[in-house]
């Protein structure tokens, strides 16, 4: 239901109003960071956030992301090995 896109905070524009610039694939837009600022807006610069309707709604946990990716990678490698084995079996069968 709710389009969310990862973006990186690149600059603060109006810390009092909790406004910052986020960059998404080279596109910049001002977003509200109230939900992710945790009292220290400047610390956000460089951080990845999940953006919805102009609000940064969640800080992306890069470690978690890396963990998921690693698991996926492992799965992928295993799959590739399996596929190569299957391929080799088929070759031999010919």
């Amino acid at each position, binding site marked *: *239901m*709710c*389009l969310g*896109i990862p973006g990186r905070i690149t600059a603060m524009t109006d810390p009092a109003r909790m406004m910052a610039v986020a960059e*998404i*694939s*080279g*596109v*910049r*837009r*001002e977003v509200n960071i109230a939900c992710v600022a945790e009292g220290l807006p400047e610390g956000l610069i460089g951080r990845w956030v999940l*953006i*919805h*309707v*102009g609000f940064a709604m969640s800080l992306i946990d890069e470690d978690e992301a890396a963990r998921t990716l690693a698991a996926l990678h492992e799965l992928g490698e295993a799959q590739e090995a399996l596929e190569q084995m299957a391929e080799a079996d088929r070759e031999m069968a010919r």
Partner: protein
Amino acid sequence: MNAIAFGALRDSHVTLSHGGGGKAMADLIETVFFPAFGPGSGEDQARLTADALCEPGARLALTTDSFVVTPLEFPGGDIGKLAVCGTVNDLAVGGARPLWLSAAFIIEEGCEIALLQRVVASMAREAVLAGVRIVTGDTKVVGRGSADGLFVTTSGVGVIPAGRDLAAARIRPGDVVLVNGVLGDHGAAILAARGDLALSTDLVSDCQGLGHLMEAVLAAAPGTRAARDATRGGLAAALNEMALAAGCGIEIREDALPLRPEVRGVCEILGLDPLYLANEGTMVLFVPEAEAEAALTAMRSRPEGQGAAIIGRAVAASEGGAHTARVQMVTSFGGRRIVDRLVGEQLPRIC
């Protein structure tokens, strides 16, 4: 401005007087249009001759488009460049060599005259690049709130040399689909340039004339079946239109679609699909398989075709009811989905 600074020539903005058929209008035309396009014939129409038109088998091509764009000036162009390129391209994609253009202006009261001059200069420049002449025109001024700054309508006359017959109906299964460059730049650049979505990008409209590119392609791939500029409704609209006319299916590969990251970004943010974004200098071309490489090479040898790519092919019409999909895309993920026409234009969405 001091007291002397009144009157037509010295006005900085268009008023209703400039459309009244009197001296102010003549001044506007003489000050803004003649320096760019050359003086008019003094008659109500341009009178033209071209040998090419009289060659046996040659046909005349006529096309028209009204241009309405906000903002009037945007990264990569303006409404004037658009108006020349758009009409030149509609001629070119049919295999016609563009010869003459007419240009009709509907100007909102209050329009800045300097802006008008820039737009007109841009039209003149683009006409020279395209090798066409703007030979006749018209100016209307409407009250404030009765137009959006400036509308430009161009019509184009060209000649289709004998023996050329580009038509979507000629597309056959197996034909290769090419585009001359990245998709969606114009649509995304305009969305960002409008400012109301507060997006900022370095995107530039792809607005450009395709006449010379088309001639180069036709020289290299004379068997070319059909072409279409992928304007309103984007690549998806052009492909659907052509598939319908051809009575066949089209299959494109998501992997093969040339797309800038910023265009993807704009689409992700606004929930849009780049296949439906407008282009103003991008065409889609159907070529028999044997000539596909030649067409690709010819494209890439010109600046307008630097980013050319083969994106798919025509396939046999699939069976099914009236709603059978004609255009399908193999996703980069290995799936397959229909690329249908939309109902209307895409609206930015949140879900």
